[in-house]
Each structure stands twice: as structure tokens, then as C-alpha cells.
């Protein structure tokens, strides 16, 4: 009734090819952005910002990265955690070597270092596919993690081996370091995620995205149509690692605020992001957000939300319960809809269009 495009006429091709052709969708996006940019920072509690929203945004960015590679191009990677780590360490090195350059520039620039490493480990993708490629990227995970611990230059020879995040400002406001307010960190991260999502969405809707999907669907056919496989696959690795790198840098600098980095970027992190992509929906932008929300927000909500609602749960019990519930929900969603939450969302939207008179 409310969600129907009746009467919305497209008078030119640009309108017809828009990412959000329906007015209600555009309004919805505007509302989401308004909530994210205005309502949440103004009214949200510190806990909501620091432990729910910031992790969610970081993981969304990483999921978008992996989704570009796995969902759109069909190349499985188990090295996302390590590529995030490359971003974090690159950002740390860059900002300690050139402290006068703005930290936001370095967070974005560290993505390019991650890209380079990603391309390097993406080279075998031309020859090997599927599970074998997954194993090859696993090698990247282990090798890079080894580098993070074994090359003291990367962490500036700190005795603790930790990344130490100093104070950096943007327009005179602290955005990193202990004095940076949560709102500032959240706003910087949100802006980064919004801009990068917009870029990714456009990339995927354009020629590059189409060539990615062609390779995913059948690489021989894609090659016959004139798509250079080597270039396309490496580009997918580069773009994907770029997003992962930025996510990693943002994680260390805007979320953790420093700490032991090598352990934060371990194989579990890679798996976690792969699960987000699978549960959210392969080859879907919004799926990346759904997946990140599901895997990163839900445990926090369960652990701290239930006791706050008056259901008394001791720390360890809550932890066990979280494992059980999240595990059960993963299985439930995969049975109900193997194509992920994004597909459920699409079905819901389709139903809504027919409502209340389905035919």
C-alpha cells in the first residue's frame, strides 16, 4: 500500500538505471542517513556508540570488501583479517613517519598498501579456483600475521608489540587518541563508511562490477566476451583489500584506540567476516550491512541487553548463551534462506509491494 511505485514514471534512461529507482527507497535511505548522522550521535548513549555502532561500521566496511571479492567476483578469500592488519600497520607506520598529515588521509591511504599486498596474494587466483584459492589466501593470512609479530619495524620496536595511537586532530577536533570524543570518532567513521559504500555501490553497478560478475558466473564465457581475466581478478583483489585495509586502520585507530594488533587480525577475524558475508548475502551491498549487524551487534545486545532488561545473567552464562543463540540463529537463517539476509529482505520488499492484495 505504502511501498508501491505506481505513478512514478521514468522519463529518461538515467532515472530508469538509478540505484534506487523507487521514491520510497530514496526516502528510506535519506532517513537512515539522517538517523545515523544526527539522531544516533545526539541521543545515543556512549555504550551504543562505542560498543554497538562503531564495531558495526568497521565490520560493515570489511564485509563490503570481502563481498566484492567473494560475492561479486566469486573468489573465496580467508585472508581478510590479515589484509585488515596490513591497513592497520600501514596507517600506524604512515602516521608515525609523517605525523603532520591528517590521520583521515592516512586511514584511507593505508587501504592502498593493503591493495598492493592483496594483489600480490591474488596472483595465484588466475590459476587456482574455489577451495584451492581459499587455501592460497590462508597462506596470506598466516604469512602476514607472522610479519606482524616478527618484524618489529612494523610496530616501531615497541616493547609491548602493540600499536600505540597518538593524538591526531581533524579541523581542530581530536579524532584519535584517548581524548577523542566518541561522537568525533563515530562521525569520522560513519563518513568514511558512507562515502566508501557509495563508491563501492557505483563501482558494482558500472562496467567494473559487471565484469566482476561475469567472471563470477563463468570465467571462460567472460574471457570470450573480451574481459581480461588477470586484470579483472587482480582488480577485485585490489578493491577488496582496499576496503579491508581501511576497515583495519579504522578498527585500530577509531575503535580500539591502539593495542595488541597482531592478535586482533587473526584467522578468526577472517572467518568472522566471511560468515558476515555469507549470512548477510553474497553479492549484495545491503547484505554486508545485515551480516555485520547480525554477527557483531547481536552478541553485544544479548550479553548486555538481557541483564539490562531484568533477565539476570552472570557474565559467563551470558557468554555461553550468546554462543548458543547466535549459532542457532545462523543455522535457522541459513535453512530459511540460504541466500542470506539480503534475500529475505528482498522477498519482504516484494511482498510489501503486493500487500494487502497479493495475486
Amino acid at each position, binding site marked *: 500500500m*505504502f*511501498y508501491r511505485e505506481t505513478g512514478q514514471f521514468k522519463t529518461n534512461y538515467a532515472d530508469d538505471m538509478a540505484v*534506487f529507482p523507487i521514491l*520510497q*527507497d530514496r*526516502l*528510506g535511505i535519506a*532517513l*537512515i542517513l539522517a*538517523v545515523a548522522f544526527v*539522531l*544516533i550521535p545526539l541521543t*545515543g*548513549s*556512549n*555504550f*551504543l556508540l*562505542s*560498543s*554497538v555502532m562503531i*564495531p558495526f561500521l568497521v565490520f560493515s566496511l570489511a564485509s563490503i570488501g570481502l563481498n566484492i571479492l567473494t560475492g561479486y567476483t566469486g573468489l573465496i578469500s580467508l585472508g581478510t583479517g590479515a589484509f585488515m592488519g596490513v591497513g592497520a600497520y600501514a596507517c600506524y607506520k604512515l602516521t*608515525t613517519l609523517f*605525523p603532520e598529515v591528517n590521520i583521515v588521509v592516512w586511514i584511507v591511504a593505508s587501504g592502498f598498501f593493503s591493495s598492493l599486498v592483496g594483489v600480490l596474494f591474488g596472483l595465484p587466483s588466475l590459476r587456482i579456483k574455489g577451495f584451492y584459492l581459499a587455501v592460497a589466501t590462508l597462506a596470506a593470512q598466516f604469512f602476514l600475521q607472522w610479519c606482524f*609479530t616478527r618484524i618489529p619495524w612494523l610496530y616501531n620496536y*615497541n*616493547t*609491548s*608489540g602493540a600499536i*600505540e*595511537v*597518538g*593524538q*591526531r586532530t581533524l579541523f581542530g577536533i581530536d579524532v584519535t*587518541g*584517548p581524548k577523542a570524543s566518541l561522537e568525533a570518532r563515530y562521525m569520522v567513521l560513519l563518513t568514511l563508511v558512507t562515502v566508501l559504500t557509495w563508491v563501492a555501490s557505483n563501482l558494482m553497478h558500472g562496467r567494473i562490477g559487471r565484469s566482476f560478475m561475469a567472471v563470477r558466473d563463468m570465467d571462460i564465457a567472460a574471457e570470450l566476451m573480451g574481459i581480461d581475466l588477470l586484470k579483472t581478478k587482480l582488480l577485485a583483489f585490489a578493491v577488496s583489500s582496499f576496503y579491508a585495509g581501511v576497515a583495519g586502520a579504522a578498527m585500530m585507530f577509531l*575503535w*580500539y*584506540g*591502539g*593495542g*595488541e594488533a*597482531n*592478535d586482533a587480525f*587473526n584467522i578468526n577475524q577472517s572467518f568472522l567476516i566471511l560468515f558476515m558475508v555469507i549470512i548477510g548475502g553474497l553479492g549484495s551491498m*545491503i547484505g554486508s550491512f545485515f551480516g555485520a549487524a547480525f554477527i557483531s551487534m547481536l552478541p553485544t*545486545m544479548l*550479553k*548486555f*541487553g538481557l541483564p*539490562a*532488561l531484568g533477565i539476570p545473567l*552472570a*557474565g*559467563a552464562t*551470558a*557468554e*555461553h548463551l550468546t554462543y548458543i543463540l547466535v549459532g542457532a540463529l545462523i543455522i535457522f537463517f541459513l535453512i530459511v534462506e540460504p541466500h542470506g539476509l539480503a534475500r529475505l*529482505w528482498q522477498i519482504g*520488499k516484494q511482498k*510489501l509491494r503486493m500487500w494487502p492484495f497479493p495475486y
Partner: protein
Amino acid sequence: MSKRLTVLGLAASILASSLMMAAPEAVAQESVYVPLFTYRTGPFAGSGIPIADGMHDYLQMLNERDGGIGGVKIALDECETGYDTKKGLECYDAVKPKNPVMVNPWSTGISLSLIPKASVDKIPVLSMAYGLSASARGDIFPWVFNPPATYWDGLAMIIRYLGTESGGLDKLKGKKIGYLYFDGGFGKEPIPLFEQMAKDMGFELKLYPVPPGEMQNQSSQWLSVRRDRPDFMVMYGWGAMNPTAVKEAVKINYPMDKFVSIWWPGENDVNGTEGAKGFKMLNWHGIGTDYPALKDIQKLVVDKGLSKSPKEKVGELLYNRGVYNAVLIAEGIAQAQKITGKKVVDGSDVRRGLENITLDEARFKAIGLPAFAGNLQLTCKDHNGHRSAFIQQWDGAKWVKITDFIEPMPEKVKPALDEAAREYGEKNAGWPKRSEACDKS
């Protein structure tokens, strides 16, 4: 991407924010809020559970016996971290609005992330004998405390002990010492000092890192140990790493009395391993329940079913480590009450309290723990104490103290500490200068 998502998002955010807002009111006015970061799950639970129980039970006992500290109840709260930095930060954010008087991260990784926040949020970090060694410098880290000794002091004590075992520190020349360590911040920290000592004393240092994911699979490290045949093995481990190392050492027939660990193994790590007899470790406090305070814990907390600890575990090594930590918490609060004259103290007061902790024989006796541990005196300059510890040996059924208190080597540790503290301040641009005044004690 329509209204539905928006509505959902709105509902979720409103729900979440209202939940979080409601939480602080749960804490009653007349109490001091002490959150305990614990881990009863994950690969470190084996070490984490007795510690958590010890901390909780001692503070609970104070509540039951004395009605809290200075007439104010302690509001206890446990938050599960799983030794995971991410979850630790979550816990920190969750407890922050409830005005905790201090946090005990119980993980070096979490400590490292909380250290920069401490001075901003005005919540002292008490990382008892772990965390950043350099935070012993009270003038640079006014909000961080790591008594009674740093990992560097621990290493110095172990080396001194190995020296006496070999007939003098100079006899270590030409010896081979293996270092098996947790390949994270905690195990890596002593390496520079270890290397320096190797150079100064002429022994050969062999490094055997154990990656965090491989704690339960140390066969390759011990294969190297078998090849290198070090004269002594030194271990810095935690959680599942300790029992695995002991088992592997037994498997390759490494002489157990040459195997010395830092203060983190517990009974669980050696119990049940045939041949673990002879294993040595550092420790600084008493074991067992032969103290009035522990008797009170048994009577008022454990027997009443207020504890999660099994009865027979009370008084074990790591349980008592937790008790020692709780004593520091309680003393910090008590001192803060004494200094400020207030009953309900906050984080800033407790910071001053911790800075003035004086635990001498008389005080230990007064709190029902006579001769439980060596004296500890913290000052505004020294947040650590650099106290000595002793070596104890596993005799197959219990720990036996085999040495007197061994002094650390301040002449070696202090320069390294000062250098690390200076570097930390330098690398963290904008690190605040200490603005908190020192109390005259």
C-alpha cells in the same frame, strides 16, 4: 531499503539507548562500584576461573563480614571478557557509566588498550603484575598501577635464581637458556631485557615463541628445545599454554627442576601430569586456607553458596592470587576513604588511595592475612613496588617454597623501565603530563 529498515533501526537504537540509560540507576547510592573483568570461557578460562573466584569471594566476604569497606557496601559486578580485547573494551564501555572506582583488566591486551583511556575517564587501571611494565612509573602513568612486580623484575629474579643454582651469576657464562613465551605483548615484553642480560652475563638465549592460536600445540617448539638442549628453560605463559608446556617438557624428558616459570601457572596446570614433579615457578604470596580471612571466606561466602568456586579450590595458588588482587582493591578504597574522609569514593579518590597503599606486616595481620605476602608500599612515583618473590617447586601434590625472597635487579631493570616509559610518552603524541598532585604520606 524502505521504511521497514528505518523503523527497525529506529526501534533498535531507541531500545538500545534506553537500555543503556537505565543501567546506571541499578547501582545503589551508598556503595562503591567495583567491576571485575573475568574470563570463565575461552582458552584462558583454566587460569581465569580461580582468579575470578578469588577476587569475587574476598570482596564478597568483606561485604558479608564488615558490611563492605568503611561501612560502604561494595557493588560487585562481573563482566566476561574471554581474554579478548574486543570484549574487554565492550565491558569497559558497559561499566563506565556506572562510575567504577577502578578496573582490573586481567589481560595484557586489554590493559594496553585501557591505559590511554584511564587518565581521560578518571578510572584507575589496576593491572596486578601484568600489563605494561613501564606503567610502574607513577610520574608518567598516574592512573595505572601494576604492583607488586613487573615482568622485568620477574625475569631478573629468575635469572638471579638460575645464577645461584649454577653457583653464582658469573657461572651463567657459556650456559644456554631457553625462553618459551606467549607470542603476544606479555611474553614479548621481557625479550629486550633478556637479550641485554645475555650480552652482559655471557649466556646464550634461545627464543621459543608460542603463537596465541597454537597454545595447545607446542610440539614444534619442544622439538627445537630437544635439539638445542638448553641448560635452563624459562617460561612466560598463561591459560592453556602452561599445562601444554609442562606436558611437552615431560614428554621430551626435559629435567623439570631446570624449568622455571613466571608467576602464572596454577595447580591445574601441573596436576595430573605424571612427571611434572620438580617444576618451579615464581610466587609472592601464601597458598592454602590457613589465614583468618580465608577461613572467613569459607564460612561466610563459600558455605553459604555465594561463591562459584568449588570448596576444594579455595586457597589454591591462583585463587589466592585473586585474593591478593582483591586485597589491593580493598586497600585502595580504604586508603581513599582515609585520605578524603568521604565514605563513597570515586575513581580519582581511589587513584590517590592506591598511590598510598601501605601493606606492612601489621596491616596484613589486621586484615586477617598474616605473613600472606611481602610488604608493599606504593608511592606517587612508584606504582609498582618492585617487590621480591620466591621460587616454589611442585612436589607432585602441592607447591613447596624452596627459596627465600629473591631481590630483583633494579640496576638492570630501572634503566630499561625509564627508557620504555620515556619512549611511550614520546610515541604517543600528546601524552598528558602528570597534573595530579602527590599526597604527602
